């Protein structure tokens, strides 16, 4: 009994290790996509796009591991919650990889375009969501509910940046129709980053569930209404991007 239990615990640890590897890999995809966009680096963008196959492969492999553990070990309680959490979290991590690819594609589309202003808020958003992802994964490994709380708090900051950028880009498009093409691309990138943050919040919520056994929405701000466009424009000041 003890030996089989020990083997199972080792398999659970390995499962978490694989998830952590996948998370770190996708985090680097996101970082590279952001850098490719800011630095007009087409090669880096292509590298990011190519990396998605590996992320997808990791996703399938971890899911297979989970299915095997469910079938052979019939886990209960905390073990069951851990495996259920990993299965759910890989879907969110995989989506972060997909958004990184979308950002890399935008980088390729904008490679020959000179930005009408140096990018500021988008690199900031990349940095915040990247840190959120890292913290969420750390929270999972360390079963740290304080880190979960911090991740969820940061989502509000990402949302604020997204609403601000949206207002500014809309205003710039009205004032300078010649930059509409790049403004639309940047608007989409900002939207992708806002969605990445939401997926990271999902991960954090799952970590909390794994630890407490309570399934609940911890980031009710998701449900809150976005500020009206007039409000966003009102305090926008000069267009940033």
């Amino acid at each position: 009994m003890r030996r089989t239990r020990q083997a199972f615990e080792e398999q659970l640890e390995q499962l978490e290790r694989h998830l952590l590897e996948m998370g770190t890999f996708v985090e680097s995809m996101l970082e590279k996509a952001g850098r490719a966009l800011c630095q007009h680096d087409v090669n880096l963008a292509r590298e990011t796009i190519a990396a998605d196959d590996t992320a997808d492969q990791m996703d399938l492999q971890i899911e297979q591991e989970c299915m095997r553990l469910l079938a052979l070990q019939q886990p209960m309680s905390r073990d069951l919650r851990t495996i259920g959490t990993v299965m759910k979290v890989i879907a969110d991590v995989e989506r972060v990889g997909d958004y990184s690819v979308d950002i890399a594609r935008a980088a390729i589309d904008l490679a020959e375009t000179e930005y009408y202003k140096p990018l500021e808020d988008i690199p900031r958003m990349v940095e915040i969501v990247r840190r959120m992802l890292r913290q969420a994964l750390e929270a999972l490994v360390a079963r740290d509910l304080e880190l979960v709380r911090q991740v969820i708090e940061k989502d509000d900051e990402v949302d604020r940046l997204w609403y601000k950028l949206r207002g500014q880009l809309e205003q710039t498009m009205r004032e300078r129709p010649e930059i509409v093409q790049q403004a639309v691309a940047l608007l989409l990138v900002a939207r992708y980053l806002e969605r990445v943050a939401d997926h990271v919040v999902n991960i954090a919520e799952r970590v909390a569930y794994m630890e407490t056994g309570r399934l609940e929405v911890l980031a009710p701000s998701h449900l809150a209404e976005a500020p009206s466009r007039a409000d966003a424009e009102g305090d926008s000041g000069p267009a940033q991007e």
Partner: protein
Amino acid sequence: MSSDANLPIKKPEGEIKLETHDLSLYYDGFHALKNISVYIPARRITALIGPSGCGKSSFLRCFNRMNDLIQSARVTGEVLIDGANVYDRTTDVAALRKRVGMVFQTPNPFPMSIYDNVAYGPRLHGIRERSALDEVVEKSLRGAALWDEVKDTLRKSALDLSGGQQQRLSIARVLAVEPEVLLMDEPCSALDPTATFKIEELMIELMENYTIVIVTHNMYQASRVSQYTGFFLLGDLIEYGDTVQIFENPKDQRTDDYVRGRFG
């Protein structure tokens, strides 16, 4: 997660069929059940789990006073069925055991025909008329999901049936005296997976009309069939509650260790 004091027992919603208050059972000087208070809902399946020797079968046997048969056994506290104490001096034990039937670990058919096995109880309770007996035999065998398999061989010896069929015959025999509660003490432990599956299906059908309490060593069986689960350890009822909660998010560290296979 708590791990010392036992958790307070929450009363399930809906009609309560069985309850115990401060129930203790002693075998000579050995305190086998320690101050158990619990509510068992009507027409639901309640599973009792725990390692060997934890008291779950002893607890089950309190409900139909089977422990009376053990000379050294002494019971304190209350065991209620529909609010009446089964350990009251005025309780008719034979009538109690008619209301609270029991199915054991090993099928125990009498060495007689299938028909006579099922008719045994009703005859004992005074039914003599052939047509009435035919009716109760068919109804009970149908209730135990065995009728279709034995309807043409009712006169054959019950000992010729397979293990799974014999266990369903045991259930039919209990159903024949029209009980209200079915106590099942590891009813599938001697059965193969197919026969086990049939008994589990049958339990879920029977739940519509009977209150079922099952002792099982098989946690997966408990999680598959029951709505409420109690975890016993060394004579204590450590945790009792909704089956999903016990297996997904137990509150007590000892329950968590047990359902995760960390001991026992």
